[in-house]
């Protein structure tokens, strides 16, 4: 399975500012995903990061708030823009892995714990 390096691991940010989270995969993957986990909640998919095209956003998430880049098959960034305390969450990136083995064992980064004050 792919190994994902995600950074920063945590940050405390002022409201109104933006934070960019980076994910580096150790192998080329077609699909990368960005999730948010709010306290006590499940992991919620924000968007699918597509290489060479715009990200596909889920209902309730928009590009202006969560711009995503996917410049190549091993790297993606998620920016949380104009942050408010409600954006305080854990943000996780994920990549497909193992589909060729038919187990759909998507791999996750270690997460970014964001606190907005």
């Amino acid at each position, binding site marked *: 399975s792919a190994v994902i390096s995600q950074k920063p691991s945590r940050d405390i940010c002022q409201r109104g500012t933006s934070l960019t989270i980076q994910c580096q995969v150790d192998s080329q993957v077609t699909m990368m995903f960005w999730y948010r986990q709010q306290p006590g909640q499940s992991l919620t998919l924000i968007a699918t990061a597509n290489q060479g095209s715009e990200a596909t956003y889920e209902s309730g998430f928009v590009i202006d708030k969560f711009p995503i880049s996917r410049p190549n098959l091993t790297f993606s960034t998620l920016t949380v823009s104009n942050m408010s305390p409600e954006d305080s969450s854990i943000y996780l990136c*994920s990549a497909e892995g193992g589909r060729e083995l038919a*187990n759909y064992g998507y791999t996750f*980064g*270690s997460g970014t714990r964001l606190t907005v004050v």
Partner: protein
Amino acid sequence: DQQVKQNSPSLSVQEGRISILNCDYTNSMFDYFLWYKKYPAEGPTFLISISSIKDKNEDGRFTVFLNKSAKHLSLHIVPSQPGDSAVYFCAALERGGSEKLVFGKGTKLTVNP
């Protein structure tokens, strides 16, 4: 509307005993189910999966059972070990469809020595 539900937020068992974590789903289009384990400050780690054409999949101490008619699956850990203490997430997807993982809220398992 939660499509994947883990109704027990926490579970506590004694070392050596069986841990049973439950998961229910509502979307009949889901045909692949996965369990992830998450330690604090780490991302979820894939544990075991099952296709809808099966009713059981076993991997060492971990067994996942699927009851399609009840839209229910469970993860059995036997014997439970203190290192199994973590949050366990159930996830489902529709292969050939959106292929997006839909997660439950997780169950925090504590295995007491």
